[in-house]
């Protein structure tokens, strides 16, 4: 028996199981692609893969795997030619991760690194860099998912993941009206600006902003009644849109068959 085979079996077992399961999933995805008119990965699968990948990144104890994932995501971003959007979105997590890196490097650990005027701790720096690389990798995954999947696709895939119907209904309403109210808010703001509404003191500016917010809320309240009437006229009832029964084609087929 070779010596390397008689040592701790855990890593080998994990690697083998992970490899073969991934191989089966890969084959399944390739088959689905050929059935789904060339879509590389179906939105639901994309969401699950991204979620699993982010969990894996969160569990990682070394910085180089998250760094490799970040580089891989960057390559895809460059290929998709959406680098500007990517940079714009990654700024906030970058700031937060840098803040945590700074706090950890300056305060955590015992082994000091003397850089002249600045004194860092090696343990803190190591931990900060690990968190930094994890944030970068997981955010890159999410941004890529956002760039390749629409909200309606996400909602449909959430339905197949058994998310409660009322959450899906509210999400679909919110997705639809966020854009509408955002445009209305922008129009109201530019109308106020053109009448010098945002000049002067802080109190004046905030009063005008608050009146826009108040107006948007009262409009939403009034519009909800119109929306409800429109929904009723189209035969809506609570739980209809994302009812699991309504989305099962075989039920409908079996009824037809029974009739014939």
């Amino acid at each position: 028996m070779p010596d390397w085979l008689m040592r701790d079996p855990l890593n080998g077992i994990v690697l083998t199981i992970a490899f073969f399961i991934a191989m089966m999933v890969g084959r399944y995805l390739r088959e689905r692609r050929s059935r789904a008119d060339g879509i590389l990965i179906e939105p639901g699968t994309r969401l699950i893969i991204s979620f699993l990948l982010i969990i894996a990144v969160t569990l990682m104890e070394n910085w180089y795997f998250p760094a490799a994932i970040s580089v891989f995501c960057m390559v895809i971003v460059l290929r998709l030619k959406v680098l500007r959007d990517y940079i714009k979105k990654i700024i906030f997590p970058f700031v937060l991760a840098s803040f945590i890196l700074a706090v950890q490097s300056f305060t955590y650990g015992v082994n000091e690194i003397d850089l002249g005027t600045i004194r860092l701790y090696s343990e803190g720096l190591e931990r900060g860099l690990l968190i930094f690389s994890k944030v970068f990798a997981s955010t890159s995954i999410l941004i890529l998912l956002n760039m390749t999947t629409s909200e309606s696709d996400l909602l449909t895939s959430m339905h197949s993941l058994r998310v409660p119907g009322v959450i899906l209904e509210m999400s679909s309403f919110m997705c639809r009206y966020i854009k509408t109210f955002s445009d209305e808010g922008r129009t109201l703001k530019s109308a106020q600006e053109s009448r010098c509404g945002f000049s002067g003191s802080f109190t004046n500016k905030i009063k005008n902003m608050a009146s826009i917010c108040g107006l948007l809320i009262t409009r939403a309240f009034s519009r909800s009644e119109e929306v409800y009437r429109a929904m009723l006229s189209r035969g809506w009832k609570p739980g209809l849109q994302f009812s699991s029964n309504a989305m099962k084609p075989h039920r409908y087929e079996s009824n037809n068959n029974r009739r014939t």
Partner: protein
Amino acid sequence: MKSSLIDLGGFSIHISDGILEPQWCLFWFAISAIFLGLGLRIINKRIRDDPIYLPRISLIGAVVFVISVLHIPVPVTGSSSHPVGTPLAAILIGPFATVVISSIALFFQAFVAHGGLTTLGANTFSMGIAGAFGGYSIYRMLKKISPLWFSAGMAGFSGSIITYLTSALQLSLSLNPENVMYYWKIYSLGFIPTQLPLAIAEFALTGYAIKYISETKAEVIGSSGIDRFTKIAMIAMLLIVSIIAMGAYIGHLRGGNMAGVDGTVEWAAAPEAVPGGIGVELMARFGEPIGFAFVGITGGLITGYFWKAWWKGWRKY
């Protein structure tokens, strides 16, 4: 870009994926799931009674989301940032419904790199639960003794501060569990330059917005939808948590290592725990917070389920 969600600018404290330790992600998910379940129960009940509530709450949720990403002028710094928005939502639709709305909003915000999927529970807790319930409690306390605009403004201010303090606590609990108080202070101080002026702006925005609504369409400002049992349970929970937190802080000021509460809980909850037993082993594997959260959830579920039966039984004697 496929997604049509509006872009978020400015600086806000949504904890990104990869920052919190896995056991803390699970812990905040568990806590938020309880509030989310209660919120869904209240919403479903209201929809059954009055189906118009579904589009109403969704549209108001959409507007509050838009308001929370509007850039408002921030005093002192001269820049602009976006408010938390959950105290305003809690005043309009109640704190439990706000938990549901904010978790949906945070889910979609995660895809524009504000927050994350594994940290959704933590962010929902800081914004949708701590911020909304904290702000709403202040609003209810001040409503009877001060003008409406002031109580709403204070709800906005305190909700904003509570949100950032909770986020700082979440970071210190996960990243530096060996010295929580020290790092809580550091993270909170780090957020103050941007968040204190923002809280002042949120005071003015929430106060004026509620004043405007009360003058033009007062019926929009709704009730909390919370029954008496839930209200008393919430007050008791806040009271006990405050006593524990204050006790721990006083202990810290006297030079304690903050392990006193842990020891007391362990002594009271499991006085005869076997060191090598399955419970202790599980806690060592998944972390103490998960273990105690599991114990709390089990105990709370059983108590809540048999509450009425026990209460009726006691009244007979």
